[in-house]
């Protein structure tokens, strides 16, 4: 059993094969590691990949992030968002590009979750709200990558969900030996995503256990719950996940605030319906 798990982990982490992950990401990472690098240099390098730049700009200008006005250049985006967020956005556009037609629901779920994270973070007065949005966008990354890398096991997971009414996470754990939350942690290490985003995406099912950035994990957790409550998009199974009371307590969300959040969310749904980035 242990061997099988390791083998599956290896297959998942063979994400080098992902056809859409831009080479420029590696080069940019190298550049950023050097202390004397300027924003202009990084922006110039990203801008060389025009398709990627267009996608990134479309994403940062979408209602998901809620920036007033238009961000018209990669350099502007870099100054506003910082490299860590931009890097996560590049990963998300690349990964979601390999999704096939029947994963559109997951894209919508992720987009909705990103929007909800932004709404919650702004309402609670957190700093750097884009980072919360990005964590929401990436929180089901593991599901996409598992589907792409282990296509033979996907039907088995779906069967367990359909026939025994397991949650998608329970089914993953049974079939793969680990859930997408674990895969998220591996991928975050592999793509060197920042620590807060890593915790946001790998602890979104158990946010109260997140060691360093519980508020990030809690925001993603509550957003995920809301998306499933509104059935916005399709995350793999139908039904709300258990809402951890600790998450609401940690974020100090009282029922009144919860209703306000729902109000804002309803407004945003209208904006993000039909958004496509591919």
């Amino acid at each position, binding site marked *: 059993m242990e061997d099988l798990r390791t083998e599956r982990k290896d297959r998942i982490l063979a994400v080098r094969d992902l056809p859409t992950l831009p080479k420029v990401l590696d080069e940019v990472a190298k550049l950023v590691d050097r202390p004397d690098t300027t924003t202009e240099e990084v922006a110039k390098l990203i801008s060389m990949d025009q398709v990627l730049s267009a996608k990134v700009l479309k994403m940062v200008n979408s209602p998901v992030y809620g920036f007033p006005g238009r961000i018209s250049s990669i350099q502007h985006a870099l100054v506003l968002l910082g490299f860590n967020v931009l890097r996560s956005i590049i990963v998300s556009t690349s990964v979601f590009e390999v999704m096939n037609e029947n994963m559109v629901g997951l894209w919508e779920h992720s987009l909705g979750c990103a929007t909800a994270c932004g709404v919650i973070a702004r309402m609670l007065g957190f700093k750097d709200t884009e980072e919360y949005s990005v964590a929401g966008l990436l929180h089901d990354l593991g599901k996409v990558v598992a589907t792409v890398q282990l296509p033979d096991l996907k039907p088995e997971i779906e069967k367990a969900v359909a026939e025994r009414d397991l949650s998608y996470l329970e089914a993953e754990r049974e079939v793969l030996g680990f859930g997408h939350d674990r895969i998220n942690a591996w991928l975050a290490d592999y793509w060197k995503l920042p620590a807060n985003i890593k915790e946001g995406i790998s602890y979104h099912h158990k946010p109260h256990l997140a060691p360093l950035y519980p508020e990030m994990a809690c925001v993603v957790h509550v957003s995920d719950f809301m998306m*499933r409550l509104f059935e916005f998009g399709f995350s793999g199974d139908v*039904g709300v996940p*258990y809402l951890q009371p600790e998450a609401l307590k940690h974020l100090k969300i009282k029922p009144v605030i*919860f209703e306000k959040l729902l109000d804002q969310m309803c407004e945003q749904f209208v904006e993000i319906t039909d958004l496509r980035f591919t």
Partner: protein
Amino acid sequence: MQKIPLNLARPGMVLAKPVSRSDGIAVAAAGTELSDSLLDRFDGMGVTHVVVEGEPVKLDGPPGATSFDKRLERLDFLFRKYANNDWMLQIRRLMEHYFRMRAAASAAKAQPAQESGDA
């Protein structure tokens, strides 16, 4: 508030959000009441969707367009695994109350548009 395809928009409905052309230039403000001529102009400019007050159109298709009535009906199924969990039942009641209020508010807002729209 509801986002609807332009061909389902009817005179008498009220815009809940401004309408913009694809190049980003706004052509009608929120609060504007739709008329035949305005709808023709939108059509000519390539506008495909408008966002109107209330929920005047029964849409089943696109996500986020589901009415609050329908969300109420779904609660039983969505919370099916927590029938014996007091905490989740409490959350369920909160949601039920919320959706009920929103459904009532939507019905009240959509009424005038529906009357003139169906005529």
